């Protein structure tokens, strides 16, 4: 079975531009979360979506937005890019609030964004 897939794997943008990152969860998973990992730090929670609804939001500015589609894939959008947005953006999927949910997140390999 395919794991969590993310695209693009690498991208370079300039300050002020906008970026869209995409994520496909593991088949059968209905929850997608996004994390930002700045170099040398642990991942920081950005958003969680379940059944196309936002279920959680971390301490990020409104320039960050996301959505989940009927097929449970997700997009993360970042507007007006700043140098500090340079990071590895990780998508994670899970079953959601079901009895089969063992609590863990399954991560993709990430999209590395460089803002110049």
């Amino acid at each position, binding site marked *: 079975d395919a794991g969590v897939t993310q695209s693009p794997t690498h991208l370079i943008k300039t300050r002020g531009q906008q970026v869209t990152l995409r994520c496909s969860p593991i088949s059968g998973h209905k929850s997608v979360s996004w994390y930002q990992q700045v170099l040398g730090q642990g991942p920081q929670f950005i958003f969680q979506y379940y059944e196309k609804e936002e279920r*959680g939001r*971390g301490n990020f500015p409104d320039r960050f937005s996301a959505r989940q589609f009927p097929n449970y894939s997700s997009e993360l959008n970042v507007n007006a890019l700043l140098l500090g947005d340079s990071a590895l953006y990780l998508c994670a999927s899970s079953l959601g609030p079901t009895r089969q949910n063992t*609590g863990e997140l399954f991560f993709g390999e990430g999209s590395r964004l460089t803002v110049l």
Partner: protein
Amino acid sequence: AQSVTQLDSQVPVFEEAPVELRCNYSSSVSVYLFWYVQYPNQGLQLLLKYLSGSTLVKGINGFEAEFNKSQTSFHLRKPSVHISDTAEYFCAVSARSYGQNFVFGPGTRLSVLP
């Protein structure tokens, strides 16, 4: 809210030696505990998790961790490390109520030396 502390940012150790990576957490609610590993230029892979039951948890690649509620710790151990264990290790917690807003520690870089 939860927080995670990983006291050692870097741990160098010789091959075949034992290693312990320390993790302490704080939370006002019950939590699940996890250890993830990140190899260079890759995403995070689950090593092991503690949900309930036995406080000694065994994971992949010979790693194990022990949950200590009184000390709010979840230290990761391996009796004999290999060169291939060189990676970044992250401890994480999530509240037991559904939300799965994982809170990660800053990570410990394990370097296994020949």
